[in-house]
């Protein structure tokens, strides 16, 4: 779910995420249209039906980087690599935890303010990313995505669903 000042209502898309190691992530959108984003190493490729694929450097998409490192850190339990790029703050308990990631690099912080990951036990449930100009996007995973999201959903409503404050 993507919120932006430019938008009247949040954009809601859904699909699958495929994680295959610390430098490979696939993000497939299936509704309302089809789109495939593939991270391979340092480059990102976005393909959409009937369009030329577009590539850019991972550096340009700090939120993707955050998502990727968040995933790999959680799945491999390697917090050290996470600390290389982010200030990490952990709260809560095993049943409902919150991980706050703030980019250490000032340049990256100009764009990405914070990533908040909520989870239950070993399952991350939500990735909420806030860009510096206030726009944000929330990624609902697994159980938290089971219920459909209303077209006029608000950020606060989503945060509640994720179990955040």
């Amino acid at each position, binding site marked *: 779910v*993507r919120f*932006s*000042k*430019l*938008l*009247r*209502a949040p*954009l809601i*898309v859904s699909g699958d995420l495929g994680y295959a190691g610390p430098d490979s992530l696939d*993000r497939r*959108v299936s509704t309302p*249209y089809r*789109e495939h*984003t593939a991270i391979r190493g*340092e480059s*990102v490729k*976005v393909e*959409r039906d009937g*369009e030329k694929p*577009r590539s*850019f*450097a991972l*550096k*340009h*998409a*700090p*939120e*993707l980087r955050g998502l990727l490192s968040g995933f790999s850190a959680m799945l491999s339990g390697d917090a050290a690599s996470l600390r290389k790029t982010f200030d990490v703050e952990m709260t809560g308990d095993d049943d409902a935890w919150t991980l706050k990631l703030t980019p250490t690099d000032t340049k990256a912080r100009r*764009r*990405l303010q914070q990533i908040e990951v909520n989870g239950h036990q070993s399952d991350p449930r939500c990735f909420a990313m806030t*860009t510096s*100009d206030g*726009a944000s*996007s929330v990624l609902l995973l697994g159980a938290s995505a089971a219920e459909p999201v209303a077209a006029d959903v608000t950020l606060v409503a989503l945060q509640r669903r994720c179990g955040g404050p």
Partner: protein
Amino acid sequence: MKLTRSALVLLFVWLVLLAGLTWFVQRQLQISTDLRLFLPSPTTAEQKLLLEEIGEGPASRVMVISLEGAEPEQLADASRTLVETLQSSPQFRLITNGDMSLDSVPDDLLAYRYLLSPTLDERPLDQKYLHAELQERGRDLASPAGAFLEPWLPRDPTLELLKVLQRWQPMQEPNRLFDVWFDRDGKRALLLAQTRAAAFDPDQQRLAVEQLDAAAERLKREDGVTLTFSGAGKFSVMMEERTRGEAQLLGAAATVGMIVLLLIAYRRVGSVVLSALPLASAGLAGLAAVSALFGTVHGITLAFGFTLIGVAQDYPIHLLSHGHTNRSPVESARELWPTLATGVASTSIAYATFLFSGVIGLAQLACFTVAGLAVAGLTTRFALPVLMDSAGRDFGDSAWLGKLWQRMERLPRPRWAGVAAIILAIAAMVLAPQPMWESDLSKLTPVPKELLIQDQALRTELGTPDVRYLLVIDSPDTEYALKKLEQLDEPLQKLIADGAITGYDHAARYVPTAEKQRQRQARLPEPATLRVDVDAAVKDTPFRPDVFEPFLADVEKARHLRLLTVDQLRDSPLGVSVEMLLTQHDKRATALVTFSGVADVAALERFAAAAGPGILLLDTKNASETLVTNQRVKILWSLAIAAVLLVAVVWFSLRQTSRVVRVLAPMALTTLLIIGILQAAGVSMTLFHLIALILAAGLGLDYALFFEHAADDPMEQRRTLHALLVCSASTLMVFALLALSTLPVLRALGLTVSIGVVSNFVLALLLTRPTAPAHGT
């Protein structure tokens, strides 16, 4: 050493003259390192273009910088830091590392995006198009690219800037990591820097090189990153330094060696000091002549010139060795003069033919040498003897020289050996696998091969186009050239489709013609119309209706922009590309189309032939080879004329066929032998070998003339032998030192002449010495 009053006056006048010359030379002399002085003057338009590209073309101002020795991410950061540091430098016009993000476009170019992008050629900026685009932008926003596109959307909802940037990307993109150029292995970050000064402006280039060196040191110290750079400017600075360094070192070594040798030979400090005067006069006279006639002197002319006139040291040696107990030096000089004059005149004539070789560097060399040798000869004849002590050592009395001469006379006169040498030399010439002549222009430069290879490798990594084929479009102005280029786009695309080339580049890819820009400008909608269209287009998209004000403002601005010109682009990151591809001079514009991955030359030629008048496919390799071949033909003609004149001078002086043959035989044989030996050693000959051959021939002629001159008088024979021994030993020493040089050109010269000295001396001994009893005066 006692000097008479008149001798003192003479010495004083001489020294004053030398000081005057020194002052003149200091004031006038400008040293140039422009290699083109040693290239022939171009005769065709292609050659002219080629030489312009080599010397002043924007390509020659480009330095390729590589950073290595750290993790790619660090290297990329270092690359960005370097760009920031050098961007403000007065030495560099431009430095770029390939980072072409949306923010890297200068603000004043932003509004031009609607004039630069081809979008408007195909469709108007209307409600339908805007709606389709906004749909896409909605999806973009939801995609991972959303975060970095978001700030741009209000201003550029059709992502026109992205289209322009994509168009500006080279078709053969260098590898990129972290958004900056890298080599294929991802180990070296690459950058391009363009200096303000031309490649052969050594003073300015030195400042640029120093700045890069400083940056290299800082990077090494702070990040452990190794910076290397290369380019014509660096080569020019480096070669100047190295030539100067080596010339000083070798010059000092040669001077010390010479003094020691002369002291051993003559054991008198006064004579040795005096004998340096003709050479010093020769050097200064040569410099003065060149600076008066040409204004600038090429570094190579200087280095070579001084080596060539080093021969002038032989003249006072002859005078010293012919010292006589009951004959004044003045009389000795008069006695020696016919022989000496023949030597000086014939050598000078040989060099003088270079004046007409059509190569400015050679003409300078000729001027320098002829002036130098003439002055050395004349001062040895008329000034030096007056200053010299009459009571010198008489080498005619020397017992060991006498014995040596006798042993020499008993030497066989192996004519068969001469014949064998000729056959072997010719066999070597015919059988040697390498071409007899070096036609590769790049090998004529004194820049070490490794550096050129390294430079080429860096340029290849940067995806610089195939340098061999260029399409040249000559046109009266830029607009016309750009128009031509736009018309060529279609056939060029076809060449790519057919697989004849993999890519091409030309200026119109960056700057559209004014005509096209005007058309696009005319198609931009009026503000009111656009506002209505935007409002309608936004309706069923997720976007809010009021966010696109900046877009409306930019379009309105674009409608009133002055059209973009090549000049405006000059200082943008595209400047280097555009300027390399489109140059303006003398109110004409020359546009180039470069190709990459040329696979089918015939197709390229057909395309060029069909492209119309004023368009030419330049095969630079071919053009440069023709250039070198033309140059060689000219020089060989000069040499042929020189040979004829030389024989004429010797004939005029000796007037007897048998004597002429005896004098010329060693020289001719030696020339043949040197060529044979070089060929057998696998060396293809260059211009510099030819110069060395003439030098060796001049030496051979001198030796033979003096051997011939020795006649029957045993005392005279010993004096001559002494003079020749000292001469050849000193010359051999100097050139053997040169052969140790690390500069290929100096090494070639040193080796060639060293072989020549030995061969000439031995052959003169064997062939030219008079037959012991039979020959009369």
